């Protein structure tokens, strides 16, 4: 069922993108995220994986996806302080 699989992956991308926006200062530029070519997002995922002590792959692996679904404090981990 390739369409279901694709839909799941897109949901995962949206979930991680939202997480990075909320807690890692990731700012999307208005364009939809094209996964493989988005180096800024990869960089931010690496930052996040490094913070949580996960394997730093820069990829949306299952461990990373699990983590972004956990309950957490709403204060960013990488903050632009003001």
């Amino acid at each position: 069922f390739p369409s279901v699989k694709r839909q799941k992956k897109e949901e995962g991308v949206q979930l991680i993108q939202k997480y990075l926006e909320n807690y890692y200062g990731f700012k999307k530029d208005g364009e939809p995220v094209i996964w493989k070519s988005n180096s800024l997002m990869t960089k931010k995922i690496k930052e996040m994986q490094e913070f949580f002590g996960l394997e730093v792959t820069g990829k949306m692996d299952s461990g990373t996806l699990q983590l972004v679904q956990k309950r957490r404090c709403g204060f960013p981990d990488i903050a632009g302080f003001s």
Partner: protein
Amino acid sequence: TFAGEPKWAKQVLTYRILNYTPDLRPTDVNAAIKKALNVWSSVTPLKFIKKDSGDADIMISFVARGHNDFIPFDGPGGSIAHAYAPGKDFGGDAHFDEDETWTKSTEGTNLFYVAAHEFGHSLGLFHSKDPNALMYPVYRKFDPSVFPLHQDDINGIQHLYGPSSNTHNNGRETTEIKDTTEAKEPELPNTCSPDLTFDAVTSFRGEIMFFKDKHFWRKHPAVGTAELNLIASFWPRLPPGVDAAHEIPKEDETVIYKGNEFWIVRGDAILPGYPQKIYTLGFSKDVTKIDAALYNGNEGKIYYFIGDKFWSYDKRSQTMDRKPVFVRDAFPGINGKIDAAFQHENLFYFFLGRKQFEFDPDKKRVTRLLKTNFWFPC
């Protein structure tokens, strides 16, 4: 800490609970908030006063979705609370997502545990990368048996405010200026008192540690002064009133016993996987606690004193003697229940009540009878 290290310039802070979640009774919310603040006041000079009206340093509210601070909550799950660093206006304020199910148990989202984390922000702590720290950003299942602060949290908050000025507080109990019903702590004995006794004594990285109730003294043999510390300030997860302790210097490990459990510490870190049950060392099931322990570095053996007998554990073969033997048979001149013991420069020191015996294992005899405060500058 936050960039610029914002912190409160005063030590007495006020807090006000603006509204209550319907998930809990107001008395339970009050208790959880008070307990969460006390976590931090137990390791710092900070004190907290509850206000019921007007402005307060830390304003606490339960809100859902957008709530006029430009950081909306997101419904159940996800972000469950947030708080602001010390400062004017909403600085220090803590917001809890009303869409969560707040509880006082291990189910749902435990309010005390989350509030303790958020008040860390209110006092000036940023998120920790240490997954064992309270200030780690991800919510973990609340374990009521564990003191929530990790050494990383204590280091952070004491960097901002210094340690607790209350030397009678072990970091696990409340420091509450409004609570007049709190039981008084027992007076800490004077190191020069003739009645001084110890729970446990051990060498520790060239120093000697003397454990008593919630505290321990650190004494370097070549230094004239002894330093008093809270056990909780070094090892927050260790209980007070330990039974026995000994060091294994070659491995830079110190083993601490309480009841039927033991912990191995290296410096101020408790090694993972502890506590373990003392039965794993090979004791029979009827052994429920150890009175004293001593590591004989020359023979690589650990002696466990229980009543008037002792068990011997061979560190190399990792085997325990099948049966205990009488203390008086192996250590002539020492008889009875031993409170604490340790080795120093090839000599053994046994503490029995108000007496201390120096024992030479080569000569197999007591060489000196000392007062318990012998090691202190009295």
